[in-house]
């Protein structure tokens, strides 16, 4: 499957360049010759750096997603066997038994030794994994060697200062200029919703709520909670263990089941899954368990929305409630928009929820748009 689009004009431009400029040298060293002129040969990237998934949308038309897992062979034997120094995404998950596996953005932020996020508190390891992950997603965007790379990275709204520094550090190793912005902001910006909108971004580790009103969101405009995809998986696991103690399953299986059948409210299809019982695949109807598990995030989300609405200028509260944007992988739970809307009516008196069209690429698309709209001189200054 050849899915690369070659831009004829672009390449021609380029061979013309090589004939006139004798030394293209390193890309990062080149300067825009005349200050008023717009820079050419720049690849813009929008990156959504997530707990479970990192995506890129690039100004060359490439889009890529990789699960946010990085694995290093445990020993020389494993390294020889795997024929690689580092594995990413589903490759890393698949070979996890022979790897030291990192999920560098667990809980939505780089784990620090202080936060004690990773099992072994390996902060250095997580930083290295983040660096490798960012390098990998940029590689997958297929930059030309002779183009500058400018990236906007959307990171979780509540990433701490230390975390942002670490992310910035990690990115600077592979791009010519980089800016961070808050993930919910980039989602909204991508959809041209610049003011008076509430964004709900349901990820794996965290759900980020963000109030937008024209300028950059501040601390007070954001609420982050750990009620998110992973907590639904945990709840579904608990329910299944409680009600079908004989069934055997792993957390990965539960996650797949949720992604396939995840729904709240009135269900159209019964969710019947086959789970092994003493090794024999046995069908279980887990419709109710799925509904119950998926529901657990609704209450906390609406409560968080209430906080953001309640602390806003009363004159504009209504407007805010009328434009709630539902994004992130978790927004794909069927019926979730309507269910949140119903809960908003119950708790806050009104509400209107819009689901983003592309939950997997919304953040990256928005970040790319920011990268594009950013004046060239800003990029220059951050080089």
């Amino acid at each position, binding site marked *: 499957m050849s899915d*690369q689009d070659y831009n004829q004009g672009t390449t021609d431009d380029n061979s013309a360049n*090589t004939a006139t400029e*004798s030394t293209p040298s390193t890309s990062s060293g080149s300067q825009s010759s005349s200050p008023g002129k717009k820079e050419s040969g*720049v*690849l813009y990237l929008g990156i959504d750096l997530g707990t479970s998934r990192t995506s890129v949308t690039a100004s060359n038309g490439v*889009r890529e997603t990789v699960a946010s897992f990085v694995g290093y062979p445990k020993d020389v034997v494993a390294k020889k066997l795997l024929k690689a120094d580092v594995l990413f995404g589903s490759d890393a998950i698949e070979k996890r038994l022979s790897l030291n596996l990192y999920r560098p953005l667990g809980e939505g932020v780089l784990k620090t030794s202080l936060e004690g996020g990773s099992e072994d508190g390996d902060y250095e390891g997580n930083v290295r994994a983040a660096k490798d992950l960012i390098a990998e997603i940029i590689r997958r965007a297929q930059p030309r060697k002779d183009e500058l790379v400018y990236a906007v990275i959307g990171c979780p709204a509540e990433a701490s200062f230390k975390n942002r520094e670490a992310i910035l550090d990690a990115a600077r190793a592979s791009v010519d200029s980089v*800016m961070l912005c808050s993930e919910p902001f980039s989602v909204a910006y991508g959809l041209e919703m*610049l003011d008076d909108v509430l964004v709900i971004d349901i990820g794996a580790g965290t759900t980020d709520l963000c109030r937008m009103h*024209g300028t950059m969101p501040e601390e007070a405009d954001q609420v982050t909670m750990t009620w998110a995809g992973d907590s639904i998986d945990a709840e579904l696991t608990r329910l299944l263990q409680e009600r079908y103690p004989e069934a055997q399953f792993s957390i990965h299986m539960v996650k797949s089941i949720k992604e396939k059948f995840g729904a709240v409210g009135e269900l159209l299809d019964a969710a*019947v899954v086959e789970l092994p019982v003493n090794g024999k695949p046995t069908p279980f109807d887990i419709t109710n368990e799925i509904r119950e598990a998926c529901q657990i995030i609704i209450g906390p989300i609406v409560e968080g929305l209430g906080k953001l609405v309640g602390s806003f200028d009363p004159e504009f509260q209504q407007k805010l409630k009328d434009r709630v944007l539902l994004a992130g992988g978790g927004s794909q739970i069927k019926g979730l928009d309507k269910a949140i809307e119903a809960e908003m009516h119950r708790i806050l008196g009104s509400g209107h929820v819009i689901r983003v069209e592309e939950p997997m690429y919304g953040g990256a698309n928005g970040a790319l748009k920011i990268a594009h709209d950013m004046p060239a001189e800003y990029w220059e200054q951050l080089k």
Partner: protein
Amino acid sequence: MKVSEQMSKIPRGDDGVPEDEVPKGAPEDDTVQQHARKLNLVGSSQLTKAVAESVREGLRDQFELTQAQLNAAVRAVGSRLMLRLKAQSKAVRGVPKAAFLKEVQADKDRIDAARETAKRELDAMLEKLKLGQEQNSLREAELVRESQATGQVEDEQLAGRIAAIFASSDGDSAKIREKITELALGSMQGQREKSIDAQMAEHRDQVDGFERRIAKLTNSLELTEEELKKMAKAKNIDLGVGSIYRSVQGLSGEDNDYETKKELMSSIFAANLALQKGKTA
């Protein structure tokens, strides 16, 4: 232009189900294999339908199942089939993917190297050409100066000799003398120019040679570029894809929310500048 309009690619969904959930070791039935050989004659929607139908029928014949269970089974088979096909599609052209990629990488490296060499040679050539051209014009000026200096002496000698010849005869043929002198001088200058031309031609040939070589190299550069593109397309490899934004970067003044966006951009920039400063401080 909207970003979404430019991004027409289908996400490749790398984040899906781990590979170890691909069912393994299903029985390889001869009839299945025979049928599989004919499968490439069938459209994918036909195939999907046929699989779904036959699974449904097979299950209905063998078991007593509810409609929901039947549907679930059909769905399960469908997704497993997809996973299996996806897993198998990792092997390209009968070669394991890793080996294939290595082969492709070698090709790419070779072409890259050829391109590098051609480029380097071209650069050297251009340098030489420039030098040659400079030297030529210097040499030409020098030759002209030389010939003018030596010419002046020669001219005087010749004129003197002619004058002596005519002085020995009578003074009444002054007009003829003038004419002959002019004529002789003219022919002398002509000869000198010829000799300069001859010397210059040698240099010009050299330059022409350079120019032809450069044209050739440029051509071969374009060829390797072409070859690279073709190969990359055929083998679907990472050669880098050029940016679409060449000269359109920056917020358009015609944007409806120009002012708001401009303000947003500068506050993002300010925050990042502070972040970067804080780090270096």
